[in-house]
């Protein structure tokens, strides 16, 4: 029996490289990480830096040319009543959408987490996943069909002689419109519909981790259904609700397609950014508007982190 070395000798460059990776794992790590980090670092972080830079420039009011020198003038413009209204309206809408999504998502998430078994569980999962992933524009378009004056809601109301409910809703101050599709109420409904799945999934994930024994213990101690919900389920599900609210809040904050297609064309942050960079050509102010959601989300994320929402993601 001839003695052969325990470690096979290197035969080619591939083997020599393998030996190098074995001895210096950091070399392999560096090779793996360099391309993606270059991409994300240069393309993405570079772009965010450019955005921040532009927001400190200003536009010359007479020539309309961007002046490339540092100023806080553009940020001061955000506080003008017309611009501040846009910020306020967007944040209020995002908060209302988040609350409505949480209320609608809870029964679905709770049923799927606690009662659905086997095929039903898969059906519920797919039932939430498919609307989440299916085409955003197609979903918005579907609501244009539904909310139009001559559309299915108007028809159903007429058939059941309940048109007065819709007319009543549309005459509430601030909700005016010739139909739901031109009323802020319509914008709100579509936002809720589009972002609802983003609330259900993290909520379901956190509800699945509520042990049944706790619910039994609560019942044994004489709690009613309502008490169990308030004192056991809700606190344990809260991280999931907050995780979901990160999505619904952030997505509503930045959206500019939905208010453009459905609603009374009142301005939202996203629309202001879109219009300012496009037709108005005021890139510094557009950039300053875009920085606001980043700041709001950073604060929101810091609070969410403190409440343990990241464990539920």
């Amino acid at each position, binding site marked *: 029996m001839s003695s052969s070395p325990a470690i096979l000798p290197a035969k080619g460059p591939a083997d020599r490289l393998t030996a190098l990776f074995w001895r210096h794992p950091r070399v392999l790590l560096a090779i793996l990480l360099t391309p993606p980090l270059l991409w994300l670092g240069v393309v993405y972080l570079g772009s965010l830096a450019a955005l921040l830079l532009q927001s400190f420039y200003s536009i010359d009011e007479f020539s309309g040319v961007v002046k490339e020198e540092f100023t806080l003038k553009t940020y001061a413009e955000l506080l003008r009543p017309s611009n501040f209204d846009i910020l306020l309206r967007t944040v209020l809408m995002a908060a209302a959408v988040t609350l409505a999504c949480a209320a609608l998502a809870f029964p679905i998430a709770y049923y799927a987490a606690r009662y659905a078994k086997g095929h039903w569980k898969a059906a519920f999962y797919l039932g939430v996943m498919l609307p989440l992933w*299916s085409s*955003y*524009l*197609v979903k918005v*378009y579907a609501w244009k069909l539904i909310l139009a004056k001559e559309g299915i809601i108007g028809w159903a109301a007429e058939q059941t002689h309940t048109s007065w409910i819709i007319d009543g809703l549309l005459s509430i101050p601030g909700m005016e419109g010739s139909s739901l599709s031109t009323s802020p109420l319509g914008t709100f409904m579509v936002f809720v519909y589009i972002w609802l799945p983003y609330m259900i999934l993290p909520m379901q994930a956190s509800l699945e981790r509520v042990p049944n024994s706790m619910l*039994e213990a609560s019942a044994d101690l004489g709690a009613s259904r309502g008490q169990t919900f308030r004192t056991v389920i809700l606190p344990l599900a809260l991280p999931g609700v907050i995780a979901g609210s990160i999505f619904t809040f952030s997505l509503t904050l930045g959206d500019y397609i939905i208010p453009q297609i459905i609603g009374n064309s009142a301005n939202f942050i996203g629309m202001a950014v879109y219009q300012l960079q496009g037709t108005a050509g005021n890139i510094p102010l557009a*950039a300053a508007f875009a920085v606001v959601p980043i700041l709001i*989300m950073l604060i929101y994320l810091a609070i969410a982190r403190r409440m343990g929402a990241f464990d539920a993601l």
Partner: protein
Amino acid sequence: MLSDRSPLSLRAAAIGGLLFLHLPILLIFLYAFTTEERSFQFPPPGLTTQWFGVAWNDRPDIWPPLWLSLKVATIATAIALVLGTLVAAAMTRTAFFGRDQISLLILLPIALPGVITGMALRSAFGVMDIPFSVWTIVLGHATFCIVIVYNNAVARLRRLSGGIMEASADLGANAFQTFRHVLLPNMGSALLAGGMLAFALSFDEVIVTIFTAGSGTESKTLPIWMLDELIRPRQRPVTNVVAIVVFAATLLPILAAYYLTRGGSETAGMGK
């Protein structure tokens, strides 16, 4: 022992919620067959299949956006597959300085609202005087597709036992042979699923695209075409026909991705 049967009201609310999520999409199908092309009258006054023929034959403006969207989605998916797999490989089983920061960096393009990613890219193109082209669209799409591939790849890698890589090395395979014969076959379906989801996401993306596409007709993707039709409608049922195509083009990859990663710890969709 708590009852395993749900209260009726809860079941009704849950099923009602699911219906709320699905019924609106069905209306898109119905309206593709209506004879009324100027309004969204319900119920449709009559049904016809002529709009499918019209979309196919008489609307040449549909085809270039369709090809562009397919092209952009294919290139963006290819880039995301390579970059996403590389990060996933680096992030499993190795602890290193800055690991948390990198995972945040990967997540950021999808965690921040699309309008910010779009506006940021647009400012960067402006600052660097880069003209809009197909490649500026691809640049944006690939950036937010990386996280989708990464999520799928990292979930599969976590599940894969480290033993098989060591076994492969013990049997004399070098790193590249291990990658080719052990790692790739085991990750294949997860990468395919990630790629399909990335493709669906890119094919459908409109919020970032508008900022990175420029205004020329040659850089109009299918979602931008659809948005134009929503704002200035003509032949509304034709828009519905295209909407059905877009819906199918995103639905089929999602279903495929679900079946490819079913049973594992991967959750194909949680990345979006």
